[in-house]
């Protein structure tokens, strides 16, 4: 369809919205932390370096970096436009709504994947890859987890941001309470946890030693796919009915 041609145009604007100067620097610092720790392990001459690398991946990269970055970009892709009122300029165009959603989602996904996968990939390159073929596979699995996780978080919180202005805070609550506290208490939550989808999907390449992987890779891919499609369809449906607040504000 010809309307797909506008996706790069919307993406260009979205990138600029999501990447302010100071906040980009902070996000890059956040993504650089696992890499710095990886370097620290290497320099410290650890014997048990792989175990530590996996530990950093489990406790920082997957549980903090990935959801924070992806939720921020996912909820911000429309959130900033809705707050400023600039969404009018997107809506008053003869562009099918699913194209607008796709453009926004892809932009946020590209940024989230770029940051998180780079972080996981570099850390793996420093600490895991030198250990041999298992290390290469483990690094690839970690990158895949970042990609699957980013795509899922972005889709879900992009959709939510069209329903409430507090999508980001809800996202943080989801990450802290649902995936953090409750999933320890209730293992059944695995089916409804993006972190589990990401880890499960990664196990298609390599069984990461994280004790939290509860889903098979097939199940994880299936659930992640259902989530992404459902979220984007709902987002399109919502955008078609999106009503601008009338009057002055």
């Amino acid at each position: 369809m010809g309307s797909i041609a506008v996706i790069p145009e919307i993406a260009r604007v979205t990138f600029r919205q999501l990447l302010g100067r100071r906040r980009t620097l902070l996000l890059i610092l956040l993504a650089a932390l696992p890499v710095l720790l990886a370097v620290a392990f290497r320099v410290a001459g650890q014997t048990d370096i792989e175990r530590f690398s996996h530990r950093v991946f489990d406790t920082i990269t997957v549980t903090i970096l990935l959801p924070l970055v992806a939720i921020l970009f996912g909820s911000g892709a429309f959130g900033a436009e809705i707050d400023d009122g600039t969404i009018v300029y997107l809506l008053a165009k003869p562009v099918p709504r699913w194209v607008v959603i796709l453009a926004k989602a892809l932009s946020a996904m590209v940024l989230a994947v770029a940051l998180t996968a780079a972080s996981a990939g570099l850390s793996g390159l420093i600490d895991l890859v030198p250990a041999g073929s298992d290390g290469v596979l483990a690094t690839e699995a970690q990158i895949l987890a970042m990609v699957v996780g980013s795509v899922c978080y972005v889709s879900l919180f992009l959709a939510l941001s069209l329903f409430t202005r507090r999508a980001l805070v809800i996202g943080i609550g989801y990450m802290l309470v649902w995936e953090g506290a409750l999933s320890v208490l209730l293992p059944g939550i695995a089916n409804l946890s993006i972190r589990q989808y990401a880890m499960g999907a990664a196990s298609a390449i390599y069984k990461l030693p994280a004790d939290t992987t509860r889903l098979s890779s097939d199940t994880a891919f299936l659930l992640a796919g259902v989530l992404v499609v459902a979220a984007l369809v709902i987002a399109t449906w919502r955008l078609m009915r999106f009503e601008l607040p009338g009057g002055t504000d």
Partner: protein
Amino acid sequence: MTTQLAPETVPATQPASAPAIELLHAARWYGNVVAVNDISFSLGAGVTGLLGPNGAGKTTLLHMLAGFLAPSAGTVKVLGQSPHRNPSVYRQIGLVPEREAVYPFLTGRDYVKFNARLQGMRDPDGAARAAIARVGLEDAMDRAIGTYSKGMRQRVKVAGSLVHDPQVLLLDEPFNGMDPRQRIAMMDLLGDLAGAGRTILFSSHILEEVEQVGTEILVMVAGRLAASGDFRAIRALMTDRPHTVTVRSSDDRRLATTLMADPTVFAVELTPNGLSVQTAQLGAFRRILAGSSRSAGVRLLEVLSADESLESVFDYLVGR
């Protein structure tokens, strides 16, 4: 240009085709608040001012026309189609929203080009250049919009909305933040577009803005259409109505006798706060007052016209 309250009659100037904008008993409410209440009118080519005090429902009406809000009752049609959930209609609609925000990081040129590309235009660069020239923003087009003044921002929004040469242009408070010179330029531009057969509807809460550009106006008060038609006719109806003016002077009693002799005055009341004078023509009364007081040897202390705000004018229109 036709403005009519009775939509059943087809405008004389466009006998064959449907009017560009057509509302039939359109209403919109939010919960218990009625923002637009049973409005019907149709517009063809020309410039029409949508006039009303803040909160009258102008933005809601424009948003319904722009397809961002579904009417709660009645129908809204632009170029014969319902604009709600119908993105293809935006090929023919240009919208200048009231909010000032424009992507601050884009240059003026990039912003207008962005609009051209999203409209699917063949030559976005050429179209953008032409639109920027129309609003006279060539000098600033390569600066980031974040550095623009309010008036420039309004103009770049207008350039973005007419880059695809839409048949219908909707502008929400377009003259906000413009200086008088820019305002005249913008009015000339709107006039040119109207002359080329475009339908232009702009909103304003300032009477004087409309006076200079809109020959036809719609007046909205509290969600309802209070008046419509030629601006001068309505203006006359608004001004040539009973006014109450309070006058304080050194000798109210003597001034009262002099004023009663004047034909524009039809009642004078002596109150502790001064004279309460009822007049049919405010302008004429003002001119006479100075002469009468001088001839009566009375010193004027204060002249207070109680009901000259736009709201009171609208109240008057609605109250009739």
